[in-house]
């Protein structure tokens, strides 16, 4: 039964990674340069979850399979004075929809909470079983 707690922990880690990714997207919603300083709009990231624990896929749980880049093209905005603008005066902004990110964040935090509740209940069940002895 103690295994349930490890499984819950794998869920917490996965949902937290998902929230981290969403926070990264929101932080970079106007980023027009990449890490090397070149002109490239930030690409939206998202996690792909898979069942099975990260250290051992045979064990029940969940893990982040990979963090993928959204292939959607950047959104050009007409800003002629901007130093990042191209010859026609357009600046490429990341294709990130704030409302989608917010909804995903909400979903991730709810799933996180559900995992915590599940672990609390399982803990109380383990405690009750231990009381059989005492």
């Amino acid at each position, binding site marked *: *039964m103690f295994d349930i707690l490890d*499984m819950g922990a794998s869920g917490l880690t996965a949902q937290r990674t998902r929230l981290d990714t969403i926070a990264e997207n929101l932080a970079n919603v106007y980023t027009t340069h990449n890490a090397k300083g070149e002109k490239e709009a930030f690409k939206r990231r998202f996690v792909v979850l898979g069942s099975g624990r990260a250290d051992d896929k045979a064990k029940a749980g969940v893990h982040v399979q990979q963090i993928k880049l959204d292939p959607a093209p950047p959104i050009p905005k007409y800003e002629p004075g901007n130093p990042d603008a191209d010859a026609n005066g357009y600046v490429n902004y990341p294709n990130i929809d704030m409302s989608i990110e917010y909804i995903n964040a909400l979903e991730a935090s709810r799933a996180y909470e559900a995992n915590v509740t599940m672990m609390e209940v399982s803990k109380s069940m383990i405690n009750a079983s231990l*009381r059989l002895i005492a």
Partner: protein
Amino acid sequence: MFERLLNQTNAPVLERMLKFTAARQKLLAENVVNISTPGYKQKDLSLEKFQGMLRERIEQRDHGGLGSTSFDDLEAQLENPQRGMLFHDGSNRSMEQLMTDQAKNALMHNFVIELLRKQFQTMEMALKDRPV
């Protein structure tokens, strides 16, 4: 003598029930953990079917006398319930259903534990010849 003392009560039935609730809790937790996993199929054990199996054994024991029937081989079968809405990613998750099921399961678990405790207490009282 102790073997008979333990096996002639309802303790074996309660013990099986505990194993069942523990196993079911694990599956429900696995479903919650995989709530956002695409293509994940929900797993569950059927309480109704398991109770049916238990009832059958209890009736069998009632005919054969106490201690005549073993409960040790009773095992609930893993199922993939098809209830609820199937989402586009192939998962039929329902957080509300899962949380209700796990609440009921935990209540059942604690209830069975209380019954077992009471039974052990009674036994202890008999052994010590005074209330504990």
